[in-house]
């Protein structure tokens, strides 16, 4: 059982609001990832991190930003949410290269 948590699970907000999606893992994994996914559709990597103070953009361009100040914590921030940001956001972590990525339960975001 993977110990990776995401909050909130569901979020409905208005356009222009700033939001932070939280992701935490208690497994001591160095590598963490954020994916964006429309329900049941393909996963798109938007951010990843090798470890503390390391963040990189993924394949899909995203207006979100991330930070990695502590190993266990990898929050994602949208400074000004728009309806186009409506999606599910999945956080994942892994111990090492080619090891299994373990996923959190996801945050479903709806921007009105």
């Amino acid at each position, binding site marked *: 059982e993977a110990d990776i948590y995401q909050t909130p699970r569901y979020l409905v907000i208005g356009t222009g609001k700033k939001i932070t999606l939280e992701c935490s893992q208690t497994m001591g994994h160095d*590598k963490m990832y954020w994916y964006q996914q429309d329900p049941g559709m393909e996963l798109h990597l938007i951010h990843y991190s*090798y470890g503390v103070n390391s963040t990189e953009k993924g394949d899909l361009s995203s207006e979100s930003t991330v930070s990695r100040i502590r190993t266990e914590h990898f929050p994602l921030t949208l400074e000004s949410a728009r309806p186009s940001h409506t999606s599910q956001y999945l956080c994942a972590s892994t111990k090492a290269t080619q090891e299994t*990525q373990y996923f959190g339960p996801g945050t479903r975001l709806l921007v009105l």
Partner: protein
Amino acid sequence: AQKVTQAQTEISVVEKEDVTLDCVYETRDTTYYLFWYKQPPSGELVFLIRRNSFDEQNEISGRYSWNFQKSTSSFNFTITASQVVDSAVYFCALSPSTYNFNKFYFGSGTKLNVKP
């Protein structure tokens, strides 16, 4: 090129039928890992299996079995005697050795509907 293709977008079966989900991958790497994940309607991705490129033995876990064939670059997943709880979207993924940040290449998923 690194790519995973799940050609079956959606499959519907009746409970107790066997069903096979296809996964075809492309990679130039000789060392890589393949994965299957299940995504139920609740949204989380649940890890099912991890297989490395040097291990072509088929694997069985309860009603689930996986057939890895390097010759055809396929890693197919079979559910025997399907149940309604198997209804989900299933993703196949490839992790080549090229990238040291453990990049996964996901297929587009196959939605399985198991009807009672």
